């Protein structure tokens, strides 16, 4: 264990940090599930408005996805760009 250099240690810690950063995906998963569930019940109540409900749901889900994508971006930066090494 003596021959680990500082750069290797930082690279390993960056990999751990990248794994921690994508935990941010939990939030958008819950949010998109709630949006899809409410859209499904809305279609059940009013089947005539299916196309409007679908487009609104997709728009809201895509906006809710943004926070998860920020976590993904941090993970990608840590893994591939490696700003700390």
């Amino acid at each position, binding site marked *: 264990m003596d021959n680990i250099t500082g750069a290797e240690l930082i690279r390993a810690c960056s990999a751990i940090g990248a794994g921690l950063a994508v935990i941010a995906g939990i939030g958008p998963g819950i949010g998109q599930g709630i949006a899809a569930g409410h859209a499904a019940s809305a279609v059940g109540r009013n089947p005539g408005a299916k196309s409007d409900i679908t487009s609104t749901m997709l728009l809201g889900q*895509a906006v809710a996805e943004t926070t998860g994508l920020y976590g993904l971006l941090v993970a990608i930066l840590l893994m591939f760009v490696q700003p700390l090494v």
Partner: protein
Amino acid sequence: MQGSILLSSGSDIDIMVHGLFSYELFGHEFWITTTHVSILIVMIILIGFSIAANRAMKHASEVPGGFQNVVELIVEMLENMVCGTMGKCGGRFVNYVGTIFIFILISNLSGLFGLRPPTADYGVTLPLALLSFILIHFNQFKYQTPKQIWTDMCSPLPPWLPIWFPINLISEIAVPISLSLRLFANVLSGTIIMALIYALLSKVAYFWPGALHAYFDVFSGCIQTYVFCMLTMTYISNAIGEEE
């Protein structure tokens, strides 16, 4: 892997933008990258389509048929989308929104042909979002009085108590950043996963890259195109306000 345009042309994982050749300008070194090449291919496709559409519409007939039908379908679809979202002031923004819609759509779909999608480069999505940002604030200053804008910027509190002004300012500045990062990160994550699959291709993967392409390029690309244009239209409608 230096100099390869296609994503799937090697056995190792390749997700980065590569420089093809460099040149000097005003003492700085600039690179022509793979993004420039893919964007050039997208532009050539779009220009070729526009020339063909122009030629078809010059010999337009009363009863449309063939290619003329396709062009009219696309134009009508874009007009319905913009006017359905923005109401009666939508007609002036059909050109801008339609242009970025078609450009982002073809850019995202270019991943299907093995190119690295141009929108997977932050240097492409940030200018698109900045264009939308400038358009939003140009329309805000055109249709609202400075007093209205100031009241809006201090919004939860009365206008003589501008405690919320810095927070509202930050949320205004966050608009182009979140617009561009959303598109960029979606396309980039699809590109990375496809590159990982292609690196596996010689070992275990046989047919499922097709299904993943259908999701990451076609479905996700179309959704993100729609979302980008939809948010642009919503912000512009908000900036124009209720009057007219």
